[in-house]
């Protein structure tokens, strides 16, 4: 039997490894992005705003992306692979869109779903799944990033209440959130608090002058004597395991998502090089350009196999955090390289917002840093291989 020719969009035939339901999830997100977001996102990026974030959230809630991999409380109960495919499609549109969804589903909702009380779950999860309430996740502080265990934000008991004080920095969705999951040190160890953002003493200020993730809201959270009832604390976890477990979830989505940005850039470069002529022929015909394409495609599709492997392990319940570090380190590093290479193929047009490549390359600078910097993930893998902790 003659073999079917190679599909340039799927040269390894990886699509054959997904079942019909997985492809259906992918199609829904792909179509949603193409119709509702892609036509506007470059404009939002240029103006550094997300003007219709609430309407967008409700629409995203309607298709079911928020907390899609969680069970019950209005969540879809999808698999890890389905969640990964959704992240990939969202980030193929813009990393800011994927960040909105990651923070909502994998950080804020996941924290409540995994560590919250029944009352907290009932109060927040159905509204968050529907996109009617947005959530944020406050761990990073002005002086504390890679070493969150040294956080300064703290909570003290006052009778049966808690009094929360501190600052959180670089918080995605901060100023548009109805609820903030805030991590603070207490006498018992680090605890998580579910903070309605209209609580007196809570304020969020947007961070401006970003050159990356411009179509995403990033804020500083100010907590000045925020008084919370005892029912605001996440009852099921004490210690750094709480926030680190959540981060591991979101990071898993990035393993897939980053490849979406890379895919868009590779495709943009292929389209461009096919029609752009120099020295009397399309630049796609030059060996140097083809070497770039070959390397980009090899890394993109290897990355996909890695993401899928991790996804299948996650669905089987055998995924280790170190393996997620492996995936995040490799896929974000390769994705940003692919976007930068695509940028060179578009020449001067590559720096223009008329094309998606510079936007994606700039976005991935944030993705390289958040959810654990690439250096941190390198050290995690180093420790796994040697048994020696090089962090401190």
């Amino acid at each position: 039997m003659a073999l079917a020719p190679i599909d340039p969009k799927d040269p390894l035939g990886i699509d054959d490894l997904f079942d019909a339901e997985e492809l259906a999830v992918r199609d829904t997100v792909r179509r949603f992005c193409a119709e509702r977001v892609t036509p506007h996102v470059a404009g939002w990026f240029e103006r550094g705003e997300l003007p219709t974030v609430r309407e967008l959230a409700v629409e995203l809630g309607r298709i079911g992306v928020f907390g899609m991999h969680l069970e019950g409380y209005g969540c879809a109960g999808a698999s890890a692979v389905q969640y990964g495919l959704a992240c990939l499609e969202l980030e193929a549109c813009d990393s800011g869109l994927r960040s909105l969804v990651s923070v909502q589903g994998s950080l804020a909702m996941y924290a409540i779903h995994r560590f919250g009380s029944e009352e907290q779950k009932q109060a927040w999860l159905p509204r968050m799944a529907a996109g009617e309430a947005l959530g944020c996740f406050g761990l990073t502080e002005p002086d504390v990033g890679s070493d969150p265990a040294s956080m300064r934000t703290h909570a003290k008991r006052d009778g049966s209440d808690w009094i929360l004080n501190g600052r959180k920095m670089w918080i995605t969705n901060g100023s548009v959130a109805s609820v903030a999951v805030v991590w603070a040190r207490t006498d018992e160890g680090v605890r998580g608090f579910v903070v309605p953002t209209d609580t007196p003493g809570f304020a969020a200020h947007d961070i401006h002058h970003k050159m990356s993730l411009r179509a995403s809201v990033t804020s500083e959270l100010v907590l000045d004597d925020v008084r919370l009832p005892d029912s605001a604390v996440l009852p099921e976890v004490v210690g750094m395991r709480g926030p680190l477990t959540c981060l591991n979830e979101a990071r898993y989505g990035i393993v897939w998502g980053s490849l979406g940005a890379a895919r868009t850039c590779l495709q943009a470069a292929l389209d461009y090089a096919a029609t752009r002529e120099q020295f009397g022929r399309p630049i796609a015909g030059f060996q140097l350009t083809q070497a770039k394409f070959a390397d980009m495609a090899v890394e993109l599709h290897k990355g996909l196999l890695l993401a899928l492997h991790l996804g299948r392990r996650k669905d089987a319940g055998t995924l280790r955090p170190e393996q997620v570090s492996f995936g995040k380190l490799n896929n974000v590093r390769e994705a940003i390289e692919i976007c930068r290479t695509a940028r060179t193929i578009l020449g001067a047009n590559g720096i223009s917002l008329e094309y998606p490549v510079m936007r994606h390359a700039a976005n991935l600078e944030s993705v390289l840093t958040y959810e654990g910097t690439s250096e941190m993930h390198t050290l995690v893998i180093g420790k796994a291989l040697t048994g020696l902790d090089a962090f401190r």
Partner: protein
Amino acid sequence: MKIVVCVKYVPDATADRGFNEDGTTDRESVDSLLSELDEYAIEQALQIVESGVEAEITYLTVGPDDATDALRKALAMGGDNAVHVNDDDIQGTDALGTSLILAKAIEANGYDLVICGMASTDGGMGVVPAMLAERLGVPQVTYLDEVKVEGGVVKGRREGDTATEQVEASLPAVISVTDRTGEARFPSFKGIMAARKKPLESKDLDDLGIDSDEVGLSAAWSTVDAATARPARTKGEVVTDEGEGGVQLATFLAAKKFI
């Protein structure tokens, strides 16, 4: 009431499609999917239920093993259950035969309203709905741009070249709907997960009481003698305007008999 939506599983229209030696469609080398024009039929069925009409929606397809993909996709958009008619002897069936199988399956299921797409995106004859109505012996209102069900009657608007018709038929009836009826919805993830649990029944020709010599390639009233690929598009002619571009354009159009 019972609504049956006929959906076809077709080779992807954006892929390179071809034929087997016997003139039947080559389904092996291309991916297939739910015919996009049938998504409008699904959407209309769902909207009828959402407008307050109490109805069970059944999807029906005649197609190969993996045609269940089309049914699952439909069920992900909404609706209640699905029937897949599949039998080795169906291979090569023409439109007449297809309408026979569909009619038997629809009768077996029970129906008040049958909704079809305006045409498949592969065969594209647009004849199955009419044949189906004839076989069922019920009224047909085809090519509707707008559909409403009220008090035992299906009503609709049909946009023609010279007039807009308001048409209606008493139920039971067969209708077909156009791509102007309104965008089909995205299947939500909850819909996709729920589709897994909705009943999907498989039937063969025996189950429907159809003799295998009534259908299939040998029973077809029409055959495909030959199929020729359309020649590749050639580069357009560029007219450089050096003062008499208008004349050149007019000459070009006249030569092609456009003016």
